[in-house]
């Protein structure tokens, strides 16, 4: 019995680490840059495929790939915000109008990125084996790759938290999240901060993709699934609350793991049920303002 509980909880944490990372990324893009990025999952997919290519073609260790994949995805995200979302923001009469039009533009991005991925890598399922040996944790057995993925998810989350809490740039981001107009008056370069946040959100997605590729098979159309989970977690944690998203990721992971233990087919149903009930009962989420 104890082993079963341990098994379910650890499986939930392993899942939750990935969920937390992708949700923090989305939360950053929505909470600060106001883009509900429905193409978020496509950056996860790009990160996963980049890692797979680097590993299977050049033999580069997936964890080392982090320093190659992250900057590239950051630049893509940064430029996207600087060009596309910037001009949408300028032409939108209100913030609500921008939220609507940026959601649709992100939908267009989803189509473009996914099609490019299918053209380059094909539509088949891909995967590789890395650190795929079992580890015994007090009776519960898990793949080493999944434990490493959890470790990295937590480390990336912590590093990002320290960046937000301790650096000047982090302070600028927090200021922009609270009140962009006043932050601008205080000398924060708002345009740069928003683009930075979008880029950082994409990096979170990309590195989550990297970790996912270590543990699960990947394919070009995998993105949307993860986008939906990220949206659920972000709502669970409170739209715009970054710590809420991080904690929400682990909560959803454990819920998923518990439901899967009793009835594997119902975990997605449980996610959406929680999501729908939560929006009705407490739209601000568990940590919302």
């Amino acid at each position, binding site marked *: 019995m104890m082993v079963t509980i341990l098994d379910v909880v650890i499986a939930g944490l392993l899942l939750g680490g990935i969920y937390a990372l992708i949700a923090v990324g989305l939360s950053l893009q929505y909470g600060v840059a106001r883009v509900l990025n429905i193409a978020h999952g496509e950056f996860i997919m790009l990160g996963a495929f980049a890692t797979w290519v680097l590993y299977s073609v050049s033999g580069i260790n997936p964890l080392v790939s982090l320093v190659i994949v992250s900057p590239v995805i950051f630049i893509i995200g940064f430029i996207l915000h600087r060009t596309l979302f910037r001009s949408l923001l300028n032409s939108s009469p209100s913030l609500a109008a921008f*939220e609507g039009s940026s959601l649709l533009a992100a939908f267009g991005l989803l189509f473009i990125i996914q099609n490019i991925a299918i053209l380059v890598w094909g539509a088949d399922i891909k995967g590789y084996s890395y650190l795929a040996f079992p580890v015994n944790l007090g009776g519960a057995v898990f793949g080493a790759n999944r434990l490493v993925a959890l470790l990295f998810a937590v480390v990336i989350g912590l590093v990002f938290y320290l960046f937000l809490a301790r650096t000047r740039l982090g302070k600028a981001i927090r200021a922009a999240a609270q009140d962009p107009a006043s932050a601008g008056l205080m000398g924060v370069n708002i345009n740069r901060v928003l683009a930075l946040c979008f880029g950082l959100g994409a990096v979170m997605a990309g590195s989550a993709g990297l970790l996912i590729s270590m543990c699960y098979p990947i394919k070009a159309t995998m993105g949307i699934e993860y986008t939906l989970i990220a949206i*659920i977690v972000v709502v669970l944690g409170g739209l715009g609350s970054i710590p809420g998203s991080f904690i929400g990721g682990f909560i959803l992971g454990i819920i998923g793991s518990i439901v899967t233990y009793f009835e594997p087919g119902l975990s997605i149903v449980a996610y959406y049920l929680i999501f*729908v009930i939560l929006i009705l009962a407490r739209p601000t989420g568990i940590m919302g303002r």
Partner: protein
Amino acid sequence: MDITALTSKKSLVPGLIAVILVILLATSPLYVPAYWVIRLTAILMYIIITVSWVIFSGPTGYMSLASAAFFGIGVYTSAVLGEALPLPVVIGIGGLICFCLALLVGAATLRLRGIYFAIFTFGLAELIKHVLLWWEIHVTGTRGRFVITVDNTTVFYVILLIFVVALLTAYFIRHSKYGAALRSIGENEEAAAHAGINVTMVKVITFAISAVFIGAAGAIMATRWTYVEPYYAFNPLYSFMPVLMAIFGGMGQLYGPILGATVFTYLEEELITRIPELYMIIFGIILIVAILYLPNGLVGLIQKWRKGGSVEQNADT
């Protein structure tokens, strides 16, 4: 009121054009190839979904992503009841179930504004899809169902009928007191409530009416597919497409969404058949370009061209 007199005079020419178009469409199976009847059916289906979406979301500004839920329910009504009941009854039941569901959803989501309403409706469609999928696999024992088929011409005429009714409904709502109430909700909900509008009632009823046509369209389209499964019937694209088509066409005029849906559906089918490997890229680029450079859609473009670039005062937004 003089406003109604004005609209009736103004709408004489467009009304005449609409009647001629419907007559042309109704007689088209007599002289166009069968293949084109099928394509027209697809175009009309998307127009129905888009116009229905605009009835509620256009004036109020609440972005509904529940179209896929209504469409899928229509499809499954057909799949479950298609053999037992005659076609018109099945379509009616499909519409009715959607009407009731929309009433419930509308009543439950009254407090939700902006992006919350959009993600709630989207989540609802996904929830129904996954519950149904689980039910089919674990209780029914199969993933999909076979639907009794109906010949293409019948499907076309049923779709045409739903199209005409949807269009008339949209027109009358837009030009009635009711439409004015909806627009005032979109502009400022509190002010509308203070002005004596029963905001809750107007919103919920309109949402439910708009759902009927989407459900009915789903019920009849299912007969063309022969085999349905939850992922197919509740495809999120049915939620996103009407939004894109409406914005692409422009929501300022009633013909905007029709134009948008027609051009979009035609383009989509041409791209899928001609360059399937690049279809999504081109589609995505068109989408982004339209959002960036056509804020008022094709309607805005037409008006600009007609007025010679002068700023157009638009009473119907």
